[in-house]
């Protein structure tokens, strides 16, 4: 498979009468975009705003983040296969992406959503999405929609917005970066690199219903057994996020399209390792489901002849059990495993970081303490629902200081802060 992602430089974004990128300026036709988005059943109103790195803007509550792209070849392929476009095999072709531009969908479906992105100051340090030029899409939906319908509507409209805006880069010829992801199927690659250790990436996805779902080729992963993907498929949009609550450690669609573990392994394919594939493993609510998927994942890894595996988690709480169960099974098969997870070591950083422990979980990357308290400044402008600020500040008395407008909150409320696919650069230092 060969996938080329050609990245188009965007220095500024303005509204205008057509949606096009020229000489580093992205122009958006606001009315046209809003009309198109309102065609999605259930969407009653849309607001578009910009939030650039350094602006004193707070975006809350963030539902998803998506990279605006267009598939240039093969011709005629549009959008996210199986979701809002016809079924097509992903992973081959040429894609134009608006570099470091992100579509950020907001709007709370349930009252307790709290994911925040601050574009400036202390808050900006803790989220990867303070460094992207964000087009914030506030989708107001029909009040009569039931929550899961509301979620589906906002998800669909968000993906559509990323496609419509992605079209602006269709005819560009100048690129700031051209990423090429070329890799054959395992047999072929093993013949080329017979003595490089085979490595599999196991990516766990929250799959527990309402606001806690993942989708692979449009199928809700709650209904699938663990499955095998070629790395290019995920980089080409096969996996999208339906998960709106776990702010710090949910995997946004942007992070699927630019999966950091896949990119890190790709960079070493053919040099240090033979990257044989990506296994998507759903995190289910039932324990039998967890046991079954852990067994299935470790069998799949053996089938692929894996000698080393990286496992990334999504969320915090019951998924910790899946993580150590998978590690246990792989290590018992002699497959060397590295886990990536965030931890909760309390406000004082003193409590036991992971409650579900097995001796086999001995090689772990910690992406930070979800209970670390950070202090956010007073925003000049809030995009989204100020009411959700109360969720953020409501965690405990005294979190919000009315005089200065400053507020303290835990990392777990900051989008992507402790990203468990290692997309961000937090780690732990023991003092």
């Amino acid at each position, binding site marked *: 498979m060969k996938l080329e992602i050609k990245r188009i430089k965007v220095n500024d974004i303005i509204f205008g009468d057509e949606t096009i990128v020229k000489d580093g300026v992205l122009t958006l036709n606001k009315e046209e975009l809003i009309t198109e988005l309102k065609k999605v059943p259930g969407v009653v109103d849309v607001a578009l705003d910009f939030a650039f790195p350094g602006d004193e803007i707070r975006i809350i509550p963030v539902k998803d983040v998506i990279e605006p792209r267009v598939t240039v070849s093969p011709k005629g392929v549009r959008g996210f296969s199986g979701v809002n476009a016809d079924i097509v095999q992903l992973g081959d072709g040429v894609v134009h992406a608006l570099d470091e531009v992100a579509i950020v969908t907001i709007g709370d479906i349930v009252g*307790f959503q709290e994911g925040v992105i601050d574009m400036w100051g202390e808050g900006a340090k803790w989220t990867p999405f303070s460094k992207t030029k964000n087009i914030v899409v506030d989708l107001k939906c029909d009040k009569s929609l039931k929550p899961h319908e509301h979620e589906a509507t906002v998800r669909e409209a968000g993906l559509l917005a990323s496609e419509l805006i992605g079209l602006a880069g269709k005819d560009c010829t100048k690129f700031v970066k051209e990423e090429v992801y070329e890799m054959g199927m395992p047999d072929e690659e093993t013949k080329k690199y017979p003595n490089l250790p085979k490595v599999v990436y196991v990516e766990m996805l929250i799959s527990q*219903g309402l606001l806690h779902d993942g989708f692979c080729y449009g199928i809700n992963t709650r209904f699938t057994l663990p499955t095998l993907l070629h790395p290019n498929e995920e980089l080409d949009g096969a996996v999208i996020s339906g998960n709106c609550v776990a702010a710090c450690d949910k995997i946004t669609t942007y992070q699927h399209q630019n999966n950091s573990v896949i990119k890190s392994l790709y960079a070493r394919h053919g040099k240090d390792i033979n990257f044989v594939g990506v296994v998507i493993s759903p995190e289910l*609510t039932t324990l039998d489901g967890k046991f079954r998927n852990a067994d299935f994942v470790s069998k799949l890894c053996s089938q692929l002849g894996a000698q080393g595996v990286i496992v990334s988690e999504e969320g915090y709480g019951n998924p910790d059990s899946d993580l150590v169960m998978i590690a246990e099974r792989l290590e018992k098969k002699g497959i060397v495993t590295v886990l990536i997870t965030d931890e909760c070591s309390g406000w004082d950083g003193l409590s036991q970081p992971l409650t579900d422990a097995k001796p086999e979980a001995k090689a772990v990357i910690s992406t930070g303490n979800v209970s670390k308290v950070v202090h956010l400044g007073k925003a000049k402008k809030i995009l989204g629902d100020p009411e959700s600020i109360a969720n953020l500040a409501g965690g405990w008395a005294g979190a919000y200081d009315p005089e200065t407008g400053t507020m303290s909150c835990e990392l777990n409320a900051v989008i992507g802060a402790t990203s468990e696919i290692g997309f961000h650069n937090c780690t732990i230092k023991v003092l």
Partner: protein
Amino acid sequence: MNKLIFTNNEKLDGRGISVIFVKGSYRRVLEECLRYLHRGGRLLTHPNPASIKLFHSPVRSILIEEGSVDESSILLMERAIHQYDQIMTLHEVDNRNLVHYEMMDQAHIDSALEELARWQSS
């Protein structure tokens, strides 16, 4: 083996499964469950949710199957209580959004029941 749901969610529809109502907090439900598991039974769902915000929920339901003492269930329940305490050390229960938490709790039990229904003939 018949199933039980321990819950403090008044709005919960057990979908035909007998419900043991626990008066009190999310943590009370965890404690009552542990007491029960001490003498028998097996956890069918993990006691805790998958995202931290849901730990702040005032309500929580847990699905159990009757039967003999199951060591791993007792161990898992004790760890779930520890995990809950860690997240909630200085956090207040979020009563502001009770209605939505009740709905989310129902959705997750339905999701579990649906999973089980798909796999078990009974």
